[in-house]
Structures are given as C-alpha cells and as structure tokens.
C-alpha cells in the first residue's frame, strides 16, 4: 500500500510578524488558503523539549539535547523519515547539522530540501530547520525569502502538511523566544479560539495520516 505523502515541517523561530514585512509570498498565500493558527509555547523553548513534546503528544521537559533519538509514540506510529530534527546535537535524521554557527542557512536549506523531497516520494517526512535559532546574526528578510522558497517546494511535493514553529523569533535580550509560533496546515487546529500547544502537533500529524489511510 502506498504511504501518505505527509509533511511535518518545523521551522524553529519562525514568526508571523515577518511574513508581510519580508513579502514572503508562499507563506502569505498559505496563511490565506489553509488552516491557520498560533502555536503558544512559553516553557518548552529548548528545541529538544519542543520537538520531543510534538512527537510524544504530551509535554516533555528537557533542558538539553538528547544523546540519541528515543522511542517516541507518534514517531513510532507514523513511521516518518526524520530529517534534521533538533532532538539531538547534531540534529537527528537524514540531515545532521551541529546546533552552532558552523552551517549557514542556505546550506541547511539545500540539504533539507534534497532529503525531504526524496523522502516524500516514499511517505511521511518529519523535517526540521534550525538556522533561525542557531545563527546569531542574519538578514531577516533574506532568510525569510529563502525559507519561503523551501516551503513552496516541500508543500508542493506533499499531499498534506503541517508547517509549524514551536516558538517564535529569538527575543532581543537573548532570553528565549517569542512564545507565539506559526501553525499552517491542511488539518484544522484542535480548538478554533485557542492557541495550538506544541504537544498537539504530532497528534495532528497522526490525524492526517489516519485520515488518508481510512
């Protein structure tokens, strides 16, 4: 049986506030055409905590990276290919990038695009992009334009997708991240008048896959 081309794309640090300012056309089109919401995450702002929560379906409190990818319920069930997911340092999956300044945004995007497009040919892909939180300085709009192109390519290759950020833009004082992240998906958020919790995202991926298999 053919597997579902479902994409879970998590872009740590992505914020709605730069969509219009940076004329990110794909992201703005998605905002207007698919289900949208706001991820609210105040206390699971370490990338490993956020991603482990998303892939477990419950809050997982971690303050550091894991040594290896553990058995996570949703990950086991959807059997998606991991690509550059910051559960570990270097990131986990087909693309492995150190969580420091050593890899630039374009290089990360190129590696992720290639691996994700290939993975989506076979089934679900769980993809991370970490540059917005890893890199200390970059031109925000150039970064958003490059991410916009990546999103266009990956979303076009998927039948269903969840694009999210587990938290928003890094705060200026270096004290964490804006608690409000992005949720754009082919599946509606759980409650219309509430924010999306990061641990609900994996459950939504499971919903996409089960819906397509039934």
């Amino acid at each position: 049986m053919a597997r579902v081309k479902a994409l879970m794309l998590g872009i740590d640090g992505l914020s709605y506030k730069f969509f219009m300012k940076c004329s990110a056309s794909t992201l703005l089109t998605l905002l207007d055409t698919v289900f949208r919401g706001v991820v609210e995450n105040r206390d699971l702002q370490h990338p490993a905590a956020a991603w482990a929560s998303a892939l477990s379906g419950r809050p997982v409190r971690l303050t550091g990276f894991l040594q290896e990818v553990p058995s996570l319920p949703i990950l086991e069930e959807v059997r998606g290919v991991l690509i550059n997911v910051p559960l570990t340092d270097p990131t986990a999956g087909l693309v492995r990038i150190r969580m420091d300044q050593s890899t630039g945004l374009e290089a990360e995007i190129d590696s992720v695009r290639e691996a994700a497009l290939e993975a989506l040919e076979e089934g679900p892909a769980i993809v991370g992009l970490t540059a917005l939180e890893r890199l200390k300085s970059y031109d925000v709009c150039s970064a958003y334009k490059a991410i916009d192109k990546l999103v266009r390519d990956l979303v076009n290759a998927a039948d269903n997708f969840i694009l999210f950020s587990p938290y928003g833009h890094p705060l200026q004082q270096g004290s964490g991240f804006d608690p409000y992240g992005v949720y754009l998906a082919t599946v509606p958020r759980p409650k219309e008048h509430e924010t999306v919790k990061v641990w609900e995202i994996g459950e939504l991926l499971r919903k996409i896959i089960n819906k397509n298999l039934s």
Partner: protein
Amino acid sequence: MSEDEELRRILERKKAELLSQASQGAEAGEGPRVVDLTDRDFEEFLRSHRAVVVDFWAPWCAPCFLVSPIIDELSLRYDKVAFARVNADENPVTASKYYVLSLPTVMFFLDGEEVDRVVGAVPEEELEERVQWLASKL
C-alpha cells in the same frame, strides 16, 4: 464629597498620570510606543489622549500577528498619536462595546469618538494613511 468618591478621583487621576508617563517613557526609549489596555483603563486612556489607534487582537488569531509589528512601527513614527493594544479575549467588555466582531480590528479615535476602523490584516500603507489623517487633525 465622600471619602470613597475622593479616593476614586485620586486613583483615576493617578492612573491617568501613569498612563501618560508610560507613553512618554516609551517615547524616550527605543521600543514601540504601544500601551496594553484592559476593560478597566480603556476609557480613561481614550479620555486622556486626543488621537488614539487601538489594535484589537487575540493570541489565537494568526493575522493579528501580521498587524501588530506594523502598529509597533507606526507608533515610533507618529509621536502625537497614542497607540494601544487590547486583547479582545481578556477584555470582552471593551470589545463588545465597540462591536469588535472580527480580529484583527484596528480602530481610530479622535477626541474619544470612533472615526474609522480597519478589519483584517492589511498592508502597512493602508494603516499609515489613516494614522496620517488622524495626526493631521491635531
């Protein structure tokens, strides 16, 4: 005048002073000059400023996050206009009183009266045009 009445007036005067100081403090600093208002202090804020722009938002509203940075930037460019933000979920009395039925809604007040509103996420130019008009009336 009863003691309660006098106390209420003192508190109101103090609140107006604090709101005014908050605006002036932000003017002196580099951050956006946008005051978060609640059902309790909304009317007082309207009374204490001639030209006011209010951004009604809610945390679950994605397009609200497109508008808020625009309001922040405009607040830095138009220092004669007062800028405020109201979380419509947490302040239903104000949202309901001004018939805020969709989010985001940006309302424009002159001398306490609504003179214009914009519903939905619109480009910066559309909001700036209205702020310019408001500033021109001062």
